[in-house]
C-alpha cells in the first residue's frame, strides 16, 4: 500500500524529470561496459572531430575518441566521486555534529572552531596540493573531496542537535530510561535529516562539479573518463567548430546537478510533511 503510494508520488509530474535524468545517469554508471559503443579513452576509434553521426551519436574529439562513450563512463566517475565523497562527509558530520550539539562544552567548542578553520581556508588549493602529493586517481579524488565536505554539514547537524536536545521528547526519552547514545540516534537523528539532506545533496552535486573541475584542469585521474576531461579536450577544439564536444557533456553535467537539487527538495518535503 504505502510503497505503491510512494512510488506514485516519486513519479508524479513534478519529479518525473529529475528522477528519470538521474536514472539514466545511474544506468550509464552501472552498465557502462554494455552501453558505451567504444572504449572511452581509446584514440582513433573514428575520424577526428566528427560531428554527431550514426556511428558516433555525440561526435568525436580531436584524437578520434568517441564522446558518447566518454559521457557514459564519465557518469560512473561522477556518481562514484559524488556519492563516496558525500557519504564520507556525511559520516564525519553526523559523528561530530550530533555529539557536539548534544554534549556541548569543550568538545563542541573544539569541533566548531575546526569547522570555522576549514571554512575559512581556500579548500581547492589544498586539494590540488594533496592530489599532487598522493597522486591523482579516482579513489584519492573521492577521499580528498570527502575530507573537505564535512564542515558545513557538521555545522548544520550540530545546530540541529543542539536545539533538538532541549526538546521535551528528549527529556521524555531519558525518563523512560533511554541512554545518551539511544537519545542521539533514536530521538535526535531522525529529526536532523530534513536539515541535512539538502546539504548532503548539494555536497554531492558540488563534488561532482569539483571532480569535473579538477579533470578540466588536468588534475584528474589520467586513466579514467570524466565529464571534465571531455570538456577540457573539447574546449581546445571549440574553435575548430566542435560544438558537440562542449554541448553534450556540459548538458549532462548541468542536468544531473539540477536533478539532484530538485530531488533534494522533494526529499525534504517528504520528511517534513505533517499531514498526508
Amino acid at each position, binding site marked *: 500500500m504505502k510503497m505503491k503510494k510512494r512510488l506514485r508520488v516519486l513519479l508524479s509530474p513534478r519529479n518525473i524529470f529529475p528522477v528519470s535524468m538521474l536514472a539514466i545517469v545511474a544506468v550509464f554508471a552501472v552498465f557502462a561496459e554494455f552501453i558505451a559503443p567504444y572504449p572511452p579513452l581509446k584514440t582513433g576509434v573514428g575520424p577526428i572531430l566528427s560531428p554527431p553521426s550514426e556511428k558516433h551519436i555525440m561526435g568525436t574529439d580531436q584524437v578520434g575518441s568517441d564522446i558518447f562513450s566518454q559521457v557514459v563512463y564519465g557518469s560512473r566517475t561522477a556518481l562514484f566521486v559524488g556519492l563516496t565523497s558525500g557519504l564520507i562527509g556525511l559520516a564525519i558530520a553526523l559523528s561530530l555534529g550530533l555529539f557536539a550539539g548534544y554534549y556541548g562544552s569543550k568538545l563542541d567548542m573544539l569541533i566548531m572552531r575546526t569547522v570555522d578553520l576549514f571554512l575559512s581556508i581556500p579548500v581547492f588549493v589544498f586539494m590540488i596540493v594533496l592530489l599532487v602529493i598522493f597522486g591523482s586517481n579516482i579513489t584519492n579524488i573521492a577521499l580528498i573531496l570527502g575530507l573537505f565536505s564535512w564542515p558545513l554539514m557538521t555545522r548544520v547537524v550540530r545546530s540541529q542537535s543542539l536545539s533538538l536536545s532541549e*526538546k*521535551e*521528547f528528549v*527529556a*521524555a*526519552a*531519558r*525518563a*523512560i*530510561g*533511554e541512554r545518551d547514545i*539511544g537519545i542521539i540516534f*533514536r*530521538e535526535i537523528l*531522525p*529529526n536532523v535529516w530534513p536539515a541535512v539532506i539538502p546539504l548532503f545533496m548539494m555536497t554531492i552535486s558540488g563534488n561532482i562539479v569539483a571532480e569535473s573541475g579538477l579533470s578540466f584542469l588536468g588534475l584528474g585521474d589520467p586513466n579514467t573518463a570524466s565529464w571534465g576531461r571531455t570538456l577540457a579536450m573539447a574546449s581546445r577544439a571549440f574553435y575548430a567548430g566542435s560544438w558537440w564536444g562542449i554541448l553534450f557533456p556540459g548538458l549532462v553535467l548541468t542536468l544531473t546537478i539540477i536533478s539532484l537539487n530538485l530531488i533534494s527538495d522533494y526529499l525534504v518535503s517528504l520528511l517534513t510533511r*505533517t*499531514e*498526508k
Partner: protein
Amino acid sequence: MKEEYPLVEAKKLKKYFRETSLLGKVIKTTKAVDDVSFSIGRREKFCIVGESGSGKTTLARILAGLLDYDEGELFLDGERYKDLLEKDRKGFRRKVQIIFQDPYSSINPRKSVREFLERPLKLHGISFSRSDLLNILESVGLSPAEEIMNRMPWELSGGQRQRLFIARAISLNPELLIADEPVSMLDVTVRAQILSLMNRLYEDRGMSIVLISHDMLTVNVFCDRVAVMYLGKFVEIGKARDVYSSPIHPYSELLVKSTLKPDPGIRGKVDLPEKEELGSIPAVGCRFQPRCIYSVQRCALEEPILREVSQGRSVACHVKGVSRS
C-alpha cells in the same frame, strides 16, 4: 517494599541556576528550589502549586531524576536518588515516570504511536504482545486502538497526545507519577477528561502522584495534600481541602482568590490581596513581602521559616503563620 520509609522524602533540597560570564564568573544566581523539605506517602496525590517562575517545574524535574540537585538530599524508598540513578538506573526509571506540560513537544514527531509506545517496554526487556499495546491504548481512552496505533503524532489532537503520553508513562507500572501541568496546554473541555483519566488510573493502580499546577481549583479537585511554592520556597503545606477553603499564607490566599468563580455576576476587578506593583526578590526578609498587603516591619528584615501551625499544616509567615490554637 520498604514500608517504613515514605515513598519520597526531600530534605533541604536546593537547586540554583548560575549564569556565568565567559570567564566563569557568576553573574546571576536563580534560586529555583531553595531549601525545600517534604515527604510524599504511598498512594498519595500530592500537589505543588505556584505561579510561573516559582520553581515548581524544576522541582518536578528533580523528582523525576531528570535534573541534579545541588544540595540537600532526596530519597526514594529510603534510598538516595543519586545512588539509585548510578546503581540501578533502569529500576529507578521504572519506578518514577513523568508527564510533561506540552504534548506537542514531548512526543517525537518522527515516531509512530506504536514505536512511541513500544520503546520503554523494549528498553526494559518487558515482553509484550500486540494486544498488550492495544490494551494500554484502550486503558487511556484511545480508541479505536487498532487504528490509532498506526498513526503518526501529527494525526492526533492535543488531548489524544497527552493520553498517549500517559499511556507510555503508566506502561512501566510506576510507583510515582509526576505530572508537570499536564492539562495547562489543553483545551478547557479536555482538561477535565485528562484529570479524570489520571484519577481513574490512580484508583486502578494506586501509585503516588505529584501534580504540578498553577491553579488552586485543579489542586482542590485532584489532590490530597498541597504545597504552595513561591520563588523556590514552600510557603504553605497542608491538606488540599483546608488550604483551598482557608488559606493561611497571603500568597496561598492570593492563589485561591485568583481562581475563576463560576459566577457571571462577578465582573470587573476581583479583589485580590496584593499590592499593585511587583517588587523584585528582596535580599533579606520574606520573599513575598514586596507583594504582601499584610507585611509588617519584621517581614522586611527576617525570612520566615515553615512552622507547623496545626496537625499537618505548616506555614511560613510572620503575620499569618502564628498558631491558631
